[in-house]
């Protein structure tokens, strides 16, 4: 891909940004627009909208956008330290390796967090076995940045009955309701609940020179060929490149941040597209590589001054991993919904968002209406079939033929508690295709996480009944065996002994090292983290630019 600028490797660039996703893309755009020279490192290739396909086999089964499966990543998973971590068939830690990162392939469900999300520990008190804490900021402080995301990245929606205050309206009306949304509205009305518009990082109208959604139905796990999904790729990186101060260095896998004699970050070491070692000097480094990759890179950057990994004097790097738990209930209706068309979700219920202490456990979540498995044929055949149907043969085939267009899910995304035992570490045996030690995830959901997921599955079953499904079933609550939301592993906080970065994303240990992505999260929210990652990125960029201008980096 042609870049507007190429920076010299041996001349320190103002900022090296590692990762081009939800956070990295925004920070690159903000800092380059503010007059700084930036190089963005992305280990995946530079795909454009026209490179994205509807090929379910390539994209989902062959993990095209993930850069392959465990056979190339070497990733391993275990539930706790007593188990030996092994490589499952499916990549346990799932994120896109492509310019724009996971903002390219996410479903683009796009809630703001609420006021309560930032101060839950103060409201609810401690929770045993967890590192439950308040954020070092309030909703008031992040609200202007939520508004910036909505207006600069492009968000469609309408306010819901439980939303926290907003300083500006949504810039675009919501996307049209789907049959699944209509059925959720009907069910919610019966049960006294509120089915509200699902906000999306997807354009319902042309916006900033970009096209509106064409309702092709390939949002979740796919890239958007219309450029209507407000990924970093579609919304931010073109603006960054247009400044002439931002170089996107794709197919460049960073394996170490080098520090100088003063312990400051000085150089980014990476493998280029041919696998050769390269180095880029930088005045400051920003790590926005996602909660798993960020952890790995910091651990790999250990040195004499930073023996346990860069920015890890607290020992918190990699800890407190939060995936968000889930539940799913499927229902089959009399008439075709054709829910494979358009975006995943058009309606969501937030009545169970807040922790209700009378339930006896921490947590909350949203329940949304979506095709889920019924979005594409292979996915439906593998995951969407009722449990009482044989797994092959004529009866199985008849069931698919009848159900595919008539099926939908009520899916919940829930809280996860931060715990020491859930973490990202370096696998002692495996390496990835570049030779870096593989990512090892250790994760066992907190009992409260499983309890709220079960609670929401039960509510979803009631909703499915109320919606008039002819047949419905829950998938049951199982221990997480991997995740897409990679949160909490370099948490922000005021106490350097119990956090990795300060409230403005500067690492406590290294003054010219910043970390901003899902790893910054203190709590997990309710299952839609990307809006908050993007808001944090706008906020971080503002403070980083101000510090640089004041010579305080």
């Amino acid at each position, binding site marked *: 891909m042609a870049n507007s600028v190429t920076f010299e490797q041996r001349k320190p660039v103002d900022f090296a940004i590692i990762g081009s996703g939800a956070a990295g893309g925004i920070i690159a755009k903000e800092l380059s627009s503010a007059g700084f020279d930036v190089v963005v490192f992305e280990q995946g290739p530079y795909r454009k909208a026209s490179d994205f396909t509807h090929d379910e086999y390539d994209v989902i089964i062959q993990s095209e956008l993930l850069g392959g499966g465990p056979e190339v990543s070497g990733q391993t998973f275990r539930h706790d330290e007593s188990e030996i971590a092994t490589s499952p068939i499916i990549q346990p830690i799932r994120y896109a390796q492509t310019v724009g990162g996971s903002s390219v392939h996410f479903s683009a469900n796009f809630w703001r967090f609420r006021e309560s999300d930032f101060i839950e520990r103060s409201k609810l008190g401690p929770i045993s076995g967890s590192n439950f804490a308040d954020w070092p900021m309030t909703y008031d402080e992040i609200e202007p940045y939520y508004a910036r995301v909505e207006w600069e990245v492009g968000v469609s929606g309408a306010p819901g009955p439980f939303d926290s205050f907003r300083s500006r309206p949504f810039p675009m009306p919501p996307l049209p309701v789907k049959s699944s949304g209509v059925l959720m509205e009907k069910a919610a009305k019966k049960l006294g609940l509120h089915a509200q518009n699902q906000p999306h990082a997807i354009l319902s109208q042309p916006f900033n020179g970009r096209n509106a959604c064409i309702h092709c139905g390939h949002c979740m796990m796919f890239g958007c060929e219309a450029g209507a999904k407000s990924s970093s790729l579609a919304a931010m990186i073109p603006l960054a490149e247009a400044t002439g101060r931002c170089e996107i260095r794709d197919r460049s896998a960073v394996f170490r941040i080098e520090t100088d004699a003063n312990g400051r970050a000085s150089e980014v070491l990476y493998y280029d597209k041919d696998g050769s070692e390269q180095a880029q000097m930088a005045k400051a480094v920003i790590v926005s590589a996602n909660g798993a990759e960020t952890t790995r890179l910091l651990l790999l950057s250990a040195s004499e001054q930073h023996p346990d990994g860069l920015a890890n004097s607290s020992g918190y790097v990699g800890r407190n991993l939060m995936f968000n738990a889930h539940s799913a209930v499927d229902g089959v209706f009399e008439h075709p919904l054709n829910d494979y068309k358009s975006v995943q979700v058009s309606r969501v219920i937030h009545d169970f968002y807040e922790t209700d202490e009378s339930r006896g456990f921490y947590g909350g979540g949203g329940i949304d209406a979506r095709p889920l498995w019924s979005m594409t044929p292979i996915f439906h055949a593998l995951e969407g079939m009722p449990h009482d149907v044989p797994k*092959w043969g004529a009866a199985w085939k008849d069931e698919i033929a009848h159900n595919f267009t008539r099926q939908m899910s009520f899916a919940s995304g829930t809280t996860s508690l931060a715990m020491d035992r859930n973490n990202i570490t370096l696998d002692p045996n495996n390496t990835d295709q570049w030779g870096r030690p593989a990512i090892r995830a250790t994760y066992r959901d907190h009992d409260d996480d499983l309890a709220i997921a079960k609670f929401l599955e039960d509510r979803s079953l009631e909703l499915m009944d109320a919606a008039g499904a002819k047949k419905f079933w829950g998938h049951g609550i199982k221990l997480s065996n991997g995740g897409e939301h990679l949160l909490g592993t370099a948490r922000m906080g005021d106490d350097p002994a119990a956090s990795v970065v300060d409230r403005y994303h500067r690492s406590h240990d290294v003054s010219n090292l910043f970390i901003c992505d899902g790893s910054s999260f203190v709590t997990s929210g309710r299952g839609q983290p990307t809006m908050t990652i993007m808001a944090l990125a706008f906020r971080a960029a503002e403070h980083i630019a101000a510090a640089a201008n004041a010579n305080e980096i």
Partner: protein
Amino acid sequence: MNNPDEISRRRFLKATGAFGGASLFRIGAPSLAAVTQAACTARDEEAAFNTLGAEEAADFAAIAARIIPATDTPGAAEAGVIWFWDNALGSEFSSLLPGVRSLREQLSANLGRPFADLPEAEQDAALRSIESDPRFELWRLLTIFGFFGMAKHGGNKDHMSWDLIGYKGHHGAWTPPFGYYDAEVEQANGE
């Protein structure tokens, strides 16, 4: 891999007609025409299996045809799923080939004759006896991928499986209403 009896796709289709034929006639003329036409393209005249030998391909095609059988609609045989097996086992799923083969060998030894030669009811019984074997799951997955994946991967000829389930995945864009229930609301709102 180095089977000296590699056969052309056309010859293979003829051979498999023995178990596909009866079902195909139940489908009716249009689908049958589509299959016949597909079988007669120049590509199919020329091409041979790249990965599978003739005998094992015949067995695997018969296995796929019981996993997704032709009923009053086409199944794995009509959609050409065996071509997907052949492509995938020669490339992205080559590591699965030993497992895919060893279960067939085991089954053949138990049966004492080729799976493809059995009547359908006996084929189903034979598959039920091994359906908890993880290697059977490989067979099932290959069949699902080939049947429901894009036609370019070898199976799903003429989007047969998509027509079966009502998925119009080859269309690029939609406008509301998308389904019965949102259309109902639009109508009620006088839109």
